[in-house]
């Protein structure tokens, strides 16, 4: 698979390590009333779709950036690639 890095251009997926579902960006609020439930779901439950999947890849043997890759889990086709930093900021993280 070739991952089209937003800064570096097309890179072999072998340069990356895979973490998992991009929902891991959305860490729950630890002070919420139901924080224990929210963290259980956050840490252990997955949508695991057959089809489009947004997921976190780390460019370990490159510029060490985290990417959000949208990929089809049935065909392995890569649809879009974004910097995880941009995704997280758009969701109001790390203000």
């Amino acid at each position: 698979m070739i991952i089209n890095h937003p800064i570096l251009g097309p890179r072999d997926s072998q340069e990356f390590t895979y973490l998992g579902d991009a929902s891991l960006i959305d860490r729950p609020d630890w002070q919420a009333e139901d924080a224990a439930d929210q963290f259980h779901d956050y840490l252990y439950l997955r949508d695991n779709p057959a089809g489009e999947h947004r997921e976190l890849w780390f460019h370990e043997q490159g510029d060490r950036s985290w990417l959000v890759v949208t990929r089809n889990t049935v065909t392995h086709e890569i649809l879009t690639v974004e910097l995880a930093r941009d995704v997280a900021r758009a969701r109001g993280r790390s203000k």
Partner: protein
Amino acid sequence: MRYSGLKVIKEALTGHKGWRPTWRDPEPKNSYDVVIIGGGGHGLATAYYLAKNHGLTNVAVIEKGWIGGGNVGRNTTIIRSNYLLDGNEPFYELSLKLWEGLEQDFNYNAMVSQRGILNLVHTDAQRDAARRRGNAMILNGSDAELLDVEGVRAMYPFLNFSNARFPIKGGLLHRRGGTVRHDAVAWGYARGADLRGVDIIQNCEVTGFRIENGKCLGVETSKGFIGANKVASCVAGSSSRVMEKAGMRLPIESHVLQAFVSEGLKPVLDGVVTFGAGHFYVSQSDKGGLVFGGDLDMYNSYAQRGNLPVVEDVMEGGMALMPMLGRVRMLRSWGGIMDMSMDGSPFIDKTHIDGLYFNGGWCYGGFKATPASGWCYAHLLATDTPHKVAAAYRLDRFRRGCMIDEKGQGAQPNLH
């Protein structure tokens, strides 16, 4: 279909025209006591033991493709009982004991071959871990033997003992482990279940569940609605896709694991050797092909094929362990889809929906678990209480902090 020596001779002399299908091909009835979703090894074993152990024969197994076309036909056929943790080892030991009596039990040749499994060790720390695991296995009624390097050399002199990164220092030998003809397992269980009255319905895909007031009343399928007192999902690899139709999210990711077969060779390797440090394991089939595999492709996938980097990684592992492999040609490769669970261990449990049961999360250890999985799932379905050796395989174990994490990797499914 029943077989006898006389029948084989008669058919040989009359052109093999008298053989009939091994199981019936029935249309679904309106309802059953139990509907099992998934006609793989585990689903068929569950149906067989429901009928045989519990006398429940008003049972259907529904399968979207053909039986045995999924992971029971896509694995590397290894059976073993060499786990460490209390939540796991008694279960896998039951499974191995069932394998040992399986062919006599369902009267079908599954070619169970206890040729031994050797896990190689390369460091003092690995030897300590192997000794600990071996002791845990023995405490649970399994067998284990710690070999020094000369012991390994006597068995497999052709291995590369002086690899600079991973020199072989010994191994943990599990003599009762081995291999089985995997397709015959599906066929044997299917025949045994069918003879007892179970309906095996192929080309019948589940499209939804009918759930009213928190109770599952049956399944919607491509052949219409089928009612059931109990619906039992048993579709490892596709668990998330099926259970999503019941509104459930699971502690599972689906990943692809590749396997390979070489051209046929003369007998060279009479057991199974695993080289965990190099992500490689190998055995030789009765046809002569070397059957081997390695690590997951590491990313979520429902494609039953992987990518080339892992092919290369597995071949490198093979070359590091058995340099003589260099001139062997690879014949086939394929991928299977694994339910990778969050702690590397499976589930056999009721769900929060009345009448809906779940079996899955087998990671890449599903094949060896087939008999015990069927045995324990049938026990749960028939009695509504978990079998004692599967009592830890609960869906809520993460919430309770009772993970069964053999490798200690935490909630990172591709590392289990």
